[in-house]
């Protein structure tokens, strides 16, 4: 185990149902760093996070992911978690019949030699619930069952706070949260960073959330590749100007548009009809 925990992604190619989504991603995240992943929808941001976590729906066809000196790709999902990775998901699952507290206690116990004492667990759970300003009965409710969108997102952060990962990936954790909740979640993330030097990869469309988390690095994913990297100023520029300047400057086409272009060829008949109708009405 190395002193400093670093995530190193090299030439990562990832497919979903034989469609290549990531086409060679390189990314290095050191301890204590916060990286923002930007880019238009459908260009691979969530795919990258899911591939790092090990979602079975995503197939890595080429490349490597090393974390803390360990080959992450050869590890099952649960071992990646124990190694310090955490993914706050965009759509957290509902697990009826399993309470939040039973689930979290089991998850905490797999990362310590001795089981966490019930007393310590309850205290930690209570203080985390109040920090995230959730209802007190959270511990006894079934995992995410019947939760509102915002509650589910906050519950992801409750889990993060309890498990104390060394690298957290936040996949649009701020969507579905109102202004106050965004601040609560941001504060909770920052306090854990201060506590354990956690590094973060964050996907977000909201400037307000990024302002809270303060990423030092910005990367733009377009059509499965990181086409531009920079400091916080890059995120600010994208927030005010959008992506069009970037497509021109780096000569790239976003995935959705690339697909639409390809489709145009097959729909030329319709287009021709539309064009002729337009011509006739003139």
């Amino acid at each position, binding site marked *: 185990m190395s002193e400093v925990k670093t995530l190193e992604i090299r030439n990562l190619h990832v497919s979903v149902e034989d469609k290549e989504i990531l086409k060679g991603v390189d990314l290095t995240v050191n301890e204590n760093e916060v990286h923002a992943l930007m880019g238009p929808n459908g260009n691979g941001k969530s795919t990258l996070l899911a591939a790092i976590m090990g979602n079975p729906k995503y197939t890595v066809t080429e490349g490597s992911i090393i974390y803390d000196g360990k080959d992450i790709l050869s590890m*099952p999902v649960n071992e990646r*978690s*124990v190694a310090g990775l955490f993914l706050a*998901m965009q759509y957290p*699952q*509902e*697990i009826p*019949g399993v309470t939040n507290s039973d689930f979290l206690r089991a*998850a905490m116990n797999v990362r310590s030699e001795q089981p966490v004492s019930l007393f310590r667990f309850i205290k930690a759970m209570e203080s985390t619930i109040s920090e995230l300003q959730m209802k007190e009965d959270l511990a006894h409710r079934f995992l995410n069952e019947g939760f509102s969108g915002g509650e589910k997102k906050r519950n992801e952060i409750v889990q993060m706070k309890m498990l104390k990962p060394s690298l957290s990936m936040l996949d649009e954790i701020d969507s579905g949260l109102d202004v106050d909740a965004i601040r609560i979640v941001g504060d909770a993330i920052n306090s854990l960073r201060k506590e354990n030097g956690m590094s973060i990869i964050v996907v977000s469309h909201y400037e307000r959330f990024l302002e809270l988390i303060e990423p030092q690095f910005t990367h733009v994913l377009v059509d499965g590749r990181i086409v531009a990297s920079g400091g916080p100023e890059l995120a600010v520029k994208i927030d005010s100007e959008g992506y069009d300047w970037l497509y021109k400057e780096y000569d790239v086409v976003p995935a959705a548009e690339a697909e639409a272009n390809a489709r145009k060829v097959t729909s030329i008949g319709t287009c021709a009809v539309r064009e002729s109708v337009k011509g006739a009405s003139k």
Partner: protein
Amino acid sequence: MTPLRLNTDIALSEGYSEYEIDSDRNLELTFRASGKCDVFVRIRRADHIRIRSFIEEGAEVSILFWNISEKDAQIDESHEVMKDAKLTIAYGECNSASTKRSTYTALRGTNASALVSSASLVQSKKDYSMNVVNFAPHTHGEIRNYAVVLKTGVLMIDAIGKIVNGARKSESHQTSRALSFEDGQKSTILPELLIDENDVQASHAMSIGRMDEDQLYYMMSRGLSVEQCTSLVSAGYLMPITEVIDNEELRETLRSEMERKIGELC
């Protein structure tokens, strides 16, 4: 704990009572209740048992049958629920032997209600036929089955909710869920609603299958192994049965018994 070895008529007393069936011969039991009763019946040894119960007007009765018999058992039951009476009946079937059970519940008087439920950790053959019939108006019947089917297990459930003509404003609901972990397992659940009255509410829900892949991924992403996920989810399926009886001490005993079994088998 009162042992039951011979044919017996039992007038249930108010509050909590415990019985143990320990018989290798045919046994006939009759329960009568007029008050508020919580009853725990442990089936230690059984062959063929016939059980009848009469839940009298206004009575409120919960009975939990907890099967630990190592011998295959056949159990036939009928329950009569009178006006304004409420019956909750539950079967805990986590033993290794087979069970063939047929249970018939009749909602005889206005405002009668019955919940018939089971939790099974299926290692052999569990074959249940469950009938709840609404004979009177404003009656409420419900069937609820939860099963975790293991490699050697075969589950068959025939769940029938029936509302007769004239039983207006009655309700009949059922939910049956079976969770399996391996390929090639056999579970059969037949939900039936036989409705002969227009002004009623009825519903059924059913699922058979393996644990959802997305749920498994979600739980594993927090560090739990496949085995830990399956045993947590299995416990979630089966544990609620212990809450039928309002007795904290009993609940704890049953929970730890189930936890141990689930830990060993799932």
